[in-house]
């Protein structure tokens, strides 16, 4: 193998460093970008956690005013925005980045610089949203941003409209990138029905993003233009219809729910078979159920609006479709249970979190089905019952699955194991704290406790007050549990036990390569002949169908290994994604404050950044190389831009 650093020709310099600070900020390597996503998620998770801590402090007792109403509204709004857009979605993106190329047998994503662009846009979008605290107050109209409250100047929701749109640009670019990567960069032999379930779920998720994001972008542009530039989309005085905003928001908002849960479903569909030492039960059913969720997910949005003016026919139709979407979800849950059934289960930390996912998500799913019943829904609307429900699917579901993924793939990223004892302490305290926090909310909600209310009304009685105290105590447990996780993460990164290349006896392609993953991912691109390729390379079957290990070395691609003096071409680092995305700051502030000079500067900055990106020197052998008319050269990153 020849070196992957190559000479560049062109107009200006291009960074050559792979290590150190410059190496990180100019990287186009999907693995580094994945790690950067994860670290940024931890920071924003801390912010969102602190906000929720204040919320629980305030609601720990009735009629308590730790925070003023004004600050409380900003905190619960930012808590929701942070956890949805700055934690769960990018947490999934971290896994997409690190794992998609590895699991499909590729050396990077289709557009490495666009990938860096997505990361920086996400980071700056988050910084932009949080800068609102210093610039006249954070958004305070809840994460749904209903008009006409949100078009009111006191709601600070212009920051919400612009901030979420910037984050949307990040997700849209990432969606295009990942879809092309999965469709177009699979290793030879990796047919659709041989793809790991995580890859399938990533594909469905990114199609959901692709089709849901433009709709929220429209809603947010309308909100932005209404609030800052005086248009009348949601202004009832001239005939504008606030319900239009609700439709547009939830037409995005409900697919968004599946955008957040499907990656976690994919993760545990990888972990359960490995730790049950059985193939996934009903692979095709799990895949098609995931795709079905993707389709039906676009047809259930109005169950969020049963108390709005949508009429009885719409209510009935959406009640039916809401019940219907429970079917593919139920199929998945049974498949996971049957995967574990009769398996030789290993109860390590990733497995415990996966089982936690299945059980907690089932509770959240069942309370979700109750929303399909229109009168019941009207009763629960805007109560803590809804808060309990979506925390069971997003915290008990998505977050449990994503944390399972951290424990499972940590050895892949670092070559070290996370401490198992601390992991188990983390799991059990996390499970207990979670249920203590959100379990009682079902009951206090059914007893009438309203959401988004700064002060817990004393007239709800001592039972509701007790439930709230329990919830607040649950937060304390979760807080210490999170500290255990953080401590484990840091100490294991520094001096964890060496894991070896394949610590879990895993089934999928990412474990074929050494751990930690080498820079070029695969010395030789593997040729795939089976679903669960790696397992089939390690094990054959005897007459009774039992797995027997094949002799050491028999799993290698000897033919390919022999023929491997190919030139491995890896994407070069670049300054431009970082430089270009800084332009979102003037552009965003211009849109928030109605300042056309700032908007102009921001747009010019973005366009100039794009030109820098296009004309920066390229590596030898790239098809963009200026003096290279007509030469053909096989490259690992075809058309890398």
């Amino acid at each position, binding site marked *: 193998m020849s070196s992957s650093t190559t000479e560049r020709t062109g107009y200006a310099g291009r960074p050559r460093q792979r290590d150190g600070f410059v190496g990180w900020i100019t990287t186009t390597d999907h693995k580094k970008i994945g790690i950067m996503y994860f670290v940024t998620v931890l920071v924003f998770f801390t912010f969102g956690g602190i906000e929720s801590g204040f919320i629980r402090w305030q609601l720990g007792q009735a009629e308590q005013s730790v925070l003023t109403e004004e600050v409380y509204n900003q905190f619960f709004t930012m808590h929701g925005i942070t956890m949805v857009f700055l934690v769960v979605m990018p947490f999934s993106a971290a896994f997409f980045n690190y794992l998609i190329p590895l699991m499909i047998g590729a050396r990077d994503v*289709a557009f490495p610089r666009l990938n860096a662009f997505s990361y920086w846009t996400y980071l700056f979008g988050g910084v932009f949203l949080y800068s609102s605290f210093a610039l006249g107050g954070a958004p305070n109209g809840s994460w749904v941003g209903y008009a006409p409250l949100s078009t009111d100047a006191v709601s600070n929701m212009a920051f919400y409209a612009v901030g979420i749109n910037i984050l949307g640009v990040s997700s849209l670019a990432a969606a295009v990138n990942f879809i092309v990567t999965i469709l177009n960069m699979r290793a030879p032999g990796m047919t659709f029905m041989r793809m790991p379930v995580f890859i399938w779920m990533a594909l469905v998720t990114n199609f959901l993003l692709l089709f849901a994001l433009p709709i929220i972008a429209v809603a947010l542009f309308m909100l932005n233009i209404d609030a800052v530039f005086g248009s009348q989309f949601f202004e009832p005085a001239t005939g504008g219809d606030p319900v239009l905003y609700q439709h547009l928001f939830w037409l995005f908002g409900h697919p968004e729910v599946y955008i957040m849960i499907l990656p976690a479903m994919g993760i545990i569909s990888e972990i359960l078979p490995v730790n049950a030492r059985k193939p996934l039960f009903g692979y095709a059913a799990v895949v098609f159920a995931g795709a079905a969720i993707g389709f039906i997910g676009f047809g259930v949005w109005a169950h969020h609006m049963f108390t709005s003016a949508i009429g009885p026919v719409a209510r009935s139709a959406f009640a039916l479709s809401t019940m219907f979407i429970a079917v593919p979800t139920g199929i998945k849950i049974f498949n996971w249970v049957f995967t574990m059934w009769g398996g030789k289960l290993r109860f390590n930390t990733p497995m415990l979190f996966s089982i936690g996912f299945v059980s907690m998500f089932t509770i959240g799913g069942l309370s979700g089905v109750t929303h399909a019943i229109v009168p019941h829904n009207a009763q629960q609307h805007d109560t803590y019952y809804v808060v309990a429900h979506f925390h069971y699917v997003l915290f008990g579901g998505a977050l449990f699955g994503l944390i399972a993924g951290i424990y499972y793939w940590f050895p892949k990223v670092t070559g070290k194991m996370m401490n198992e004892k601390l992991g188990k302490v983390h799991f059990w305290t996390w499970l207990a704290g979670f249920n203590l926090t959100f379990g009682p909310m079902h009951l206090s909600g059914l007893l009438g406790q309203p959401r988004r209310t700064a002060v817990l009304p004393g007239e709800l009685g001592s039972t509701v007050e007790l439930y709230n105290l329990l919830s607040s105590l649950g937060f304390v447990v979760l807080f210490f549990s999170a500290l255990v996780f953080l401590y484990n993460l840091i100490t294991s990164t520094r001096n964890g036990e060496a894991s070896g290349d394949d610590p879990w006896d895993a089934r999928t392609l990412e474990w074929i390569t050494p751990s930690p993953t080498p820079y070029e991912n695969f010395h030789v691109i593997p040729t795939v002949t089976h679903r669960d390729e790696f397992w089939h390379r390690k094990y054959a079957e005897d007459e009774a169908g039992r797995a027997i290990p094949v002799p050491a070395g028999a799993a290698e691609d000897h033919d390919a290994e022999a023929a491997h003096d190919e030139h491995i071409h890896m994407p070069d680092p670049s300054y431009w994604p970082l430089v270009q995305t800084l332009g979102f700051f003037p552009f965003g502030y211009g849109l928030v404050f109605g300042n056309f000079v700032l908007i102009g500067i921001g747009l010019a900055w973005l366009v100039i950044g794009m030109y820098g990106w296009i004309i920066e020197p390229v590596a030898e052998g790239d*098809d963009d190389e*200026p003096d290279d008319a007509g030469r053909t050269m096989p490259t690992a990153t075809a058309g890398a831009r």
Partner: protein
Amino acid sequence: MSTDAATTTLGIDHRKLGMWTFLGSEFLFFGAFVSAYLLYLDTTADGPGVEIFDIPFTSISSFVLLMSSLTMVLAHHAHTKGDMRRMRLWILATAGQGAVFLGGQVFEFNVFVREGLELSTSPFASSFFVLTGFHGLHVFVGILLLASLYALSLTGKIKPNQDVKTEMIGLYWHFVDIIWVVIFTVVYLIPEIAVVE
């Protein structure tokens, strides 16, 4: 064709597949704006309504924009033949027609504002200006892309064997045209005919 396409799983260049994927998203973007416009068709708050449209004028600028798709195809065809001189000529023609359309839109907006239809007049006015304004922005981006294509083909950054680049920008340009066909029909023609009858 780019030489890279043969090495991909689907046999399509990444950039082309990426552009198709992105355009799939764009359809929903305009779809949502068109829906909002249809909802607010009669919500004029006693201001001007659809009768304000000047169909003959907009028909002419629409025709110019549609013809630009033809020159775009000719530009791509010239590029596949490696005829860069002719390719640049057709690219210039395409961008020029785009600019004529954009000029027509600016003129039209000015006339409407003078006749009392402003962004803040009514939900109808807001949805009209924002929908057609976003389309205009897309045309503007398209012109920028075409101008870049022209300039970079002179510097050698875009080479005779890289017609996938022209094809990709062509895909975007045709998309912007197709969306205008929908907008012209749904926003201008059908409501106007309904008013006349």
